[in-house]
Every structure is written in structure tokens, then in C-alpha cells.
């Protein structure tokens, strides 16, 4: 009894667009917190300007990444059955809305473009992203969302969160270690 991995609807040559793009806003918004913090401590406008650019780049890439992720989510019922997908999606949309507001706050001039509202929003967004990023990782690396291939019995959605724990220290390989790549090599 085997099942197919949840598909990514928006993919290019089998590579899921959402997973390809979503690291860019993640990195931008995390870096915004860093540059905001440096500005807060130095009052050197260079850092506030850097935050403004990071936010804009993050938002522009989100314009592609978020719809791709939403389409994947709505088009594929197996994805919607995963709690991780819900946390990831709702969290990221929240982070996106907060980042839009944050980008507007960063259009203010000088100190109050960052302190305090911008800095607080940047920090809240990073906290959200820590959670949603972890869940996004789980969607791919545990549940195989968008990963091409067939899930063997006992692997996949039903084994939520067991991969790390089931990894054997000694002895027989655990189920979680049997990656898709290995399987594909064994199949012929």
C-alpha cells in the first residue's frame, strides 16, 4: 500500500515555485530586523535605508511566492489535511500583512521610520517566521509536499513529526532515513 506525495500545483519543470521563492522574503525580513536593530543602536540612516529596501524586495518576491503557495494549498486536498500547512499559511499571510504595514512605517523620515513601531513589527514578523519556517520545512522534508515520487507504506502524512525521533542511533535504518532519492535508485 503506497501513496503519492502531495503535489505542488504551481511548479516549473517539477520544481515547486513556492518552495523556490519563499526563502527570499524570509531572508529579507530577518535581515530587516538586523538592520533595524543596527539603526536603533547607531541612528545611522544607511541602516534604515537598508531596511526599507529589504522590505520592498521581500514584499515584491512575496507577490509571487504567496499566491503560488496559496494555489498549492487550495488545489491539493492532501496538503490541506496537514496542520503544518495551516500554520505555515496563516502565519505567513499574517507576516506578509505586518510587513506591508512595516514597509509603510519605513517610508517615514528618519528615526520614527524604525523606532519604535518599525523595529517592533520587524521583530514580531521574525518570531512568526521562525514558526512558519519550521512548519514549511516539515511540509517538504517530512510530508514530502511537492517532492516527486511515491511514498512507501508507513511514510508520509501519517507519520507527522516522527522522522527525527525514529532515526536509529545504531542498528537498522529507520523509515525516516529512506529518502526519496534512495528509493528511486532501488526501484529499477
Amino acid at each position: 500500500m503506497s501513496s503519492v506525495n502531495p503535489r505542488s500545483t504551481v511548479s516549473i519543470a517539477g520544481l515547486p515555485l513556492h518552495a523556490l521563492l519563499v526563502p527570499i522574503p524570509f531572508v529579507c525580513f530577518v535581515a530587516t530586523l538586523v538592520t533595524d536593530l543596527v539603526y536603533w543602536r547607531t541612528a545611522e540612516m544607511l541602516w534604515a535605508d537598508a531596511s526599507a529596501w529589504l522590505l520592498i524586495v521581500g514584499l515584491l518576491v512575496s507577490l509571487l511566492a504567496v499566491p503560488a503557495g496559496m494555489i498549492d494549498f487550495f488545489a491539493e486536498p492532501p496538503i490541506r489535511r496537514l496542520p503544518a500547512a495551516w500554520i505555515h499559511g496563516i502565519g505567513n499571510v499574517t507576516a506578509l500583512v505586518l510587513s506591508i504595514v512595516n514597509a509603510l512605517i519605513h517610508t517615514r523620515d528618519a528615526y520614527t521610520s524604525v523606532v519604535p513601531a518599525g523595529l517592533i513589527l520587524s521583530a514580531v514578523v521574525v518570531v512568526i517566521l521562525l514558526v512558519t519556517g519550521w512548519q514549511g520545512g516539515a511540509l517538504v522534508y517530512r510530508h514530502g509536499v511537492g517532492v516527486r515520487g511515491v511514498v512507501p507504506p508507513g511514510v508520509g502524512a501519517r507519520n507527522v513529526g516522527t522522522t527525527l525521533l525514529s532515526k536509529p542511533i545504531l542498528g537498522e535504518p529507520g523509515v525516516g532515513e529512506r529518502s526519496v532519492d534512495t528509493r528511486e535508485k532501488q526501484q529499477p
Partner: protein
Amino acid sequence: MNAARTKVSAAIATTTTAAAAAALFVLTGCGPAPQDPSRQIGANPDLPPQHQYLLPPMHVAKVVGWNGATPSVAAGLRVQAFATGLANPRSLYVLPNGDVLVVGTGGPPAPVRRPKELVMNWVEKMAHSRTPPGQRILLFRDTDGDGVPDQHSVFIDHLHSPFGVVLVGNDLYVANTDAVVRYPYVTGETRITEPGVTLCELPGGPIDHHWTKSLTASPDGSMLYAGVGSNSNITENGIQAEVGRASIWQIDRATGAHREYATGLRNPNGLQFEPNTHTLWAVVNERDELGPDLVPDYLTQVRDGAFYGWPYSYYGQHVDPRVQPQRPDLVAKATLPDYALSSHVAPLGLVFYSGTNLPAHYRGGAFVGEHGSWDRSVLNGYKVVYIPFADGHPSGPAEDVVTGFLVAGDQARGRPVGLAVDGNGALLIADDTGNSVWRVSASPSTSGN
């Protein structure tokens, strides 16, 4: 399955809608309603609480041009087109023989430091004339005495964002955006081809936010005064970019040495000596993005050594939280300006009227050219006002003298900038957006009084 999908979609939709609605509420809920500008005219303007926006408030008048129309003038006055079809005329200077210099000019290209500036530069372009600015001074001459010129020539060409002009003896000084340059002038000549000699360099690029350098000379001709506007709205280009800026420079005409005569003046323009008291006055563009009614622009006497607040505070000790590190020591000694003109009117021209052509009502006071607001939901300015003076100080409310620059509420036929009084005592108005110079004189029925 379908039911489940619908439920899920509904849940997501609700969440997204709620988030979007919250965001929208925050965005549209921004900004107090503008109050009546008359509450901010005079020595004690009403200063409402500060408001910091989420969306920078932009409301620029769409440029529609004059199409044969003319501005409206107060009773007893008439207006004529002095010159039309110009390229961004911004400032005016009348030579002793009556020749009128018209400075056609535009600012240097603005660098983009932040994504915001991409939008701001675009909006600013919308608010100005489509004609590419010249970088030259034109000379207009009226040979038949009817007040309207019948000759014109290119007086000085290939300048660098010029604005201020002043003649002392045979030395004609032009304030380019980066230097005061001296040219030899002989009465009656219509073109200067000799290269200028730099008297004193002024803060110019690469960032050159407020680029118009206003210029005047002391009554005895020994000193020049140049207005050097700030390099930002409120230090967002870094405090290092503000060295020597937001101040009025006193330049020794003999040596070119300079000192900062007065500081803390965000964008001082229209430098003029009041003819009776021989004191220096200027109109100053105050800071933006603290609300529709903050901070009022003003007309003030410029006192030697005085600090007028920018960037740390406004109207004395009203501290601006956007400036870091703050300077309580400077805020404590900030001087109150003399006369508020209300918020965001953008005064760029000032002239004291000591002529005799206009009705007696207008003698001894000051005309101010208000370029008009771009960041206030109800437009303000876009007119020339008169402020009566007594004993060398403003003595009453500002009166509208020349209006009609706006039509249908928010379309601009033109925008007044620099002012001058011509050899016959008529008021000249440079209109950079309407690409014209207007001449306001006594209407035939009231002239000769």
C-alpha cells in the same frame, strides 16, 4: 469533500479579509482633517498635535496650464502676461535700468536612496511643468514703456541650477546651486558671455534636496547673503549631509569668506532687506509629514547668530521626535519665527513693496509667493499674499492678492514662485508651472493716486 473545501476556503478567506480589513483600517484611518489655514497666520499659529502617517499624504494639483486664462487679482489691480512660453521661470531680478532677468531653472537629478524616493520623484514630476527646465537667465526689456517687454535675449547661459541673482555696482552675482558666481555687468548690455568667477562655493550635490539658493546683498553692498536649504525633510539623508545647510550664509564680497549668519532655517528663500529698518528677512519652508497643519511655513526677520530650530524643533521648543540624536541644548535656544503663513504653502518668493504704482494699501508691506502644497488633502497656497508691515514688522493678517492658480479645486494652471517689483512699480510673479511671468499693476481707474 466539496463541503470541506468550501469550509476551508471560507476560513482562509475570513482570515485574509480580516487581516486586509485591519490593514485598510490602519491605512485609511490616517491623518487628521486639515483645519482652516487662517488659524495659522500671524505671530501665534495654532499648532495641533503631531501625526505621523503610514501612507505619506500626497495630493498634488494636476497641471492643466492657463490656455489663455490669467490669474485673478484683488480689487484695484490688474494682471497682464509679462512673458509666456518660458521654461520653468522660478526667480526674477530687476536691473537698475528696468531690464528684467528671468531665471529659468530646474533642480539637479535627485538620487534614490530609498524605495520611497522612486515614488516621491515621480509625484514631484507630476506637479511640475512638462517643459524641461532651462539652466539660463533671460533678459526682458520694455522699450516703449507699456509695461510689457518687446525685446528679450539670453542673458547668461549654461548655468548650474541657478536661482538667486543680485547686482552690486558692476558685479552681477548668480547663485548656482553649488556656488555664488560673479559676472561683470555693464548697464544696458543684453548678454554676458564672459565666464563667471566663483566667489564662494555652496553645498551642492551629490544629494541636493533643497537646491534653490536665494541671494541678496546688504544695503551697503559689502556682504552677500545666500539661503542654503536643508538636504532632507528631516535628516533622513543623514546628519552628515546637512553640514552648512538649513542656514543663511553671509559671504564677504571682497574675499569670498563665509560664515553661517543664521541656522535652523529648513529651506530659506526670498532673502530681502526690509527697506525701512534694513533688517534681513526670509520666507522659510518648514518640515513635512507631521500632519496637514504641521509645520506652518513662515516669514521671519533673520537675526545674526540665531538658531530657528530645524531639525531638532519647530516654533521654539516643539521637539521633532524624528531626529536622533536629539539636542536639548539647541532646542533650548531656538528662536521663534515672526510670522506664520500656515502649513505647506511653500513660500519661495518675497518682496517688500516700496514702489508707488500699486494702491496705497500695498505700500510698505511684503508680498509672498506661495508655490503651494503637495502633502495636504486640502491644497494650501498656490497664490500671492500681501502682509502689511508697520515699524518694520508684520502688522496684520495676510491678504490674498493674486489667486486663480488653482481651478476646479485641485487642478493647477500655474504655481507662483519668485517675485520682484519692476521699474514702474508693478509686481512681477514668476510662474514655473505655467511657464509665465505675470505683471500686476494698479488698474487704470486707480492708478496715479
